[in-house]
């Protein structure tokens, strides 16, 4: 059927000087699917756009093939201009005959003309066979579930509630607060952890939009962006929630230094968290304290830096020094990780207070000396090149944060990725609180070890992303495209031919495919969740009989394009 109009852009001679557009147009005359072919000066200027859109609206033509520049140059604007004027995106196809043809083959006009003809022929093959996915629109529930009530989760929950969104906070522990309940003071302002926590706890009490589920355990998660179905237990009670978005703020745990630096074997070799406990109980009297950094971090098993251990040790070293100004307080470190303005300033301040820093080497770790109690620490000082023995009545082992055990379970329930250690992975550094599942956000130490300040910032950022999603009460599957205007619909199953082998379900990275029993069929049939599908095409490539197809890039269109290319 002749329903495609081809527009050939001269681009003020940029294309026409190399590609002979008259020959291209003449060649198109034989093509049965082409109703007409026009040569125009410049498609990207509004005048020609308007003419084109007018012809489509008047029914002169149904589909348009635009042979012009690449989409990164001005092609995208042409397409966008047409869509803006009411043309369906799938009825437009852009073929680049400038950058990839006229410009790079400037010395070979005949070759360039031939290439342009074939490129346009491929474009026609696409337009002849392209189908359109049916979009689907869902209601976005104005509720968010926050997993974890530490600083990140509390910041996210209160931010959302203050902007008018119902929040369900689920917490494994009996009380909200997370790690803020375990530490006594916070760097860099040496403020009390309770003073940071209290405004959030007040808000939980006061704000009717927030519900806290203590002693909670997730049972099951189903659903999709905008409408998750969650079953959980809280104590003895069962709850069913249907939030529009989920924020993971489940935090991390501290590595116990078992078997390291004679921990547990000699008295007064303690972990950083034990020191925090002692601080919460009252003053810690010490004459000679030594902090040892990178205990179980930046090593073979855990090659990462846990970010918070250097500032935590420096904070506690300063406190020991403040409580007993004549005490000798040493921090033995490998690199002192105090990046930025605030932390570096704090480091300088604590150094000026008299806390002393010794740089050691990875291969020559310090040794704890003493039989029952710690008596001294022997360390190779890398900067002076000598081994020193420091009297010590307290050694504090600074261990990294490690991922929570149930991260894997949450990730499986929600279809998320973990990194090699078990922390939740973001989709990309430009989108650091977003995951590959739309509507699921990560923040705080569940994502990567961070201080409470940064966790709060991240909690607010995750709340922002969730609030932006919930700002629309209704959303279409096509709205969730990371590249604007580039979503290629979603996979489509032919129910008649599906054998229910499940290959597609196994390869889907977005957990969008389920096998379902259908009336009158012996086998199960694949079913695609359009809200979850990202049109990656993995399912199409493993389908044994072509049942699974991407309508915008179906096998007829792609196969015919390849055939005509050669």
């Amino acid at each position: 059927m002749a329903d495609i109009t081809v527009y050939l852009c001269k681009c003020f001679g940029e294309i026409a000087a190399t590609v002979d557009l008259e020959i291209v147009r003449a060649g198109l005359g034989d093509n049965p699917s082409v109703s007409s072919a026009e040569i125009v000066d410049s498609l990207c200027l509004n005048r020609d756009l308007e003419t084109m859109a007018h012809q489509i609206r008047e029914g002169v033509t149904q589909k348009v093939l635009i042979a012009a520049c690449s989409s990164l140059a001005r092609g995208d604007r042409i397409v966008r201009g047409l869509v803006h004027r009411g043309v369906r995106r799938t009825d437009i196809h852009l073929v680049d005959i400038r950058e990839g043809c006229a410009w790079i083959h400037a010395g070979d006009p005949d070759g360039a003309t031939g290439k342009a003809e074939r490129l346009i022929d491929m474009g026609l093959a696409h337009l002849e066979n392209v189908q359109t996915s049916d979009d689907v629109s869902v209601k976005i529930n104005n509720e968010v579930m926050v997993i974890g009530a530490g600083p990140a989760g509390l910041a996210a929950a209160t931010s959302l509630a203050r902007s008018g969104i119902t929040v369900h906070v689920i917490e494994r522990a009996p009380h909200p607060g997370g790690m803020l309940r375990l530490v006594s003071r916070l760097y860099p302002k040496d403020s009390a952890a309770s003073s940071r926590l209290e405004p959030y706890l007040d808000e939980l009490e006061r704000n009717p939009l927030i519900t806290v589920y203590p002693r909670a355990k997730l049972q099951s998660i189903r659903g999709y962006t905008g409408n998750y179905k969650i079953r959980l237990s809280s104590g003895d009670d069962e709850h069913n929630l249907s939030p529009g978005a989920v924020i993971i703020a489940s935090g991390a745990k501290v590595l116990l230094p078992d078997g390291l630096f004679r921990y547990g074997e000699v008295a007064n070799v303690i972990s950083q968290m034990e020191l925090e406990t002692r601080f919460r109980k009252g003053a810690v009297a010490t004459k000679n304290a030594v902090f040892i950094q990178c205990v179980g971090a930046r090593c073979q098993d855990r090659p990462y830096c846990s970010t918070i251990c250097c500032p935590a040790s420096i904070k506690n070293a300063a406190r020991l020094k403040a409580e007993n100004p004549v005490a000798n307080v040493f921090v033995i470190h490998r690199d002192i990780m105090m990046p930025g303005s605030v932390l570096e300033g704090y480091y300088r301040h604590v150094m000026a207070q008299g806390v002393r820093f010794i740089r050691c080497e990875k291969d020559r770790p310090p040794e704890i000396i003493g039989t029952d109690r710690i008596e001294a620490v022997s360390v190779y000082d890398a900067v002076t090149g000598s081994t020193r023995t420091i009297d010590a009545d307290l050694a504090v082992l600074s261990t990294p944060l490690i991922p929570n055990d149930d991260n894997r379970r949450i990730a499986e329930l929600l279809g998320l990725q973990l990194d090699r250690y078990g922390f939740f992975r973001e989709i990309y550094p430009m989108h650091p609180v977003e995951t590959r599942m739309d509507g699921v956000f990560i923040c705080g130490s569940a994502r990567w070890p961070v201080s409470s300040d940064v966790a709060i910032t991240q909690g607010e950022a995750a709340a922002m992303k969730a609030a932006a999603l919930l700002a629309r009460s209704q959303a279409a599957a096509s709205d969730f495209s990371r590249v604007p205007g580039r979503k290629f619909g979603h996979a489509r199953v032919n129910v008649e031919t599906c054998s229910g082998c499940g290959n597609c379900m196994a390869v889907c990275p977005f957990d969008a495919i389920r096998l379902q029993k259908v009336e009158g069929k012996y086998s199960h049939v694949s079913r695609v969740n359009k809200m979850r599908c990202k049109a990656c095409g993995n399912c199409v490539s493993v389908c044994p009989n072509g049942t699974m197809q991407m309508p915008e890039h179906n096998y007829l269109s792609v196969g015919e394009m390849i055939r005509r290319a050669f």
Partner: protein
Amino acid sequence: MMVQNNEKNPVLVVGGGVAGIIAAFDLAEMGRTVHLVDSAPLLGGQVAKLDKIYPTDHCAFCPLWTDIKKVQEHHRVIVHTTSKVTDITQDADGYNVVIVCDPPAIDESLCIFCGRCVDTCTKGAVRPLWAHAYPPAYFIDRQLCAECGDCVDVCPTEAINLNRTEVELFLAVDEVIWATGFKEADLSTLPEFGMGTHPDVMTSLEFEEWIAEAGVNKGTITRKVNGAVPKNIAFIQCVGARDQRMLPYCSAVCCMHALKQAQWVKRRNPLIDCTILYTDLRTVGRGYNEYSLRELHESAITFIRGRPGLIHPLPTGDAIAIKYENTLTQTREIAKFDMVVLNGNLQTSPARKAADSQHIPPLNGEGFVDTMQDEIPRYACGFNLEPADIAESVIQASSAAMKVTIKEELQK
């Protein structure tokens, strides 16, 4: 003179780098009208000029381009490029802002990137803004332009007008988010680092541009002085930073930036020796420390702990001598390098200083926005709040957008 109206609780975002873009997009999604102002002709800020980003080793351009496009096409975001905030005053309803736009001579919406103006210009004044500019368009460097008008005559789309004049714009906005980012600090006050003494002593952003795959050298590593392949390159960390004479703080991004550059040098030419002279190797993000280990084992990069006391070209001019103490071996050494990359001298951008009103956000002693001073809530994100890499800047941006949203809700 124009006055904007019919807007819903408008917000001004100053700075169109990664932080500004994300803050603007988030607020626009929340239904706010956003004015996004940047002094450059294109959005993207410093990240747009980067060749690669750590720790993914991807190009900086593609993901950034996606977000730039989202903001540009958002119907609630009004982008003001080549514009500066010249005055801000606060009243009971919010802020009154004056923006001065100096429109570029080439209208980006008409430029088809044919390059005829470039071929015509005898002064070399017409060029793309940076390698990966989106949308692609040429710009005229007014410093070099002789205003002969030849380019105007050859332009097929009549996109060039050399006589465009400044436009003043008055805005009334509810809130302002400061995201003015960073610039490289002038190193002339620290002569021992040898900046300006030899073409092959350059800052890390200059080096990034010099070795960029889309840049002048198409990714090959050569010396500026003679085009030869360098035998060795030294990366000097904490130049001007963690230094009481200049920037007392740690710029936070430079360790990873140097590791990334050294790695790309080794990938493109394994025969070039790379040495990083550092103070502390601060690799605190996801995959950052592993990135430094990869450097150490696979790419065989030499790490020396020490900060040079003197960087100076040899009298013959064919190499640069670096005098330093290796503080881990306690030896004083002098080494010859073909190229020297200076890293660390990042300070907050001065764009903000254009506005001389009392309502400019107060700065702390180190030049960062002090959001807590004088009880008036201020909103800032990115490097002008605290030295931050891309991920941290973007998180701060969304957080600032959330704070602005909450403030609005509380006032209802």
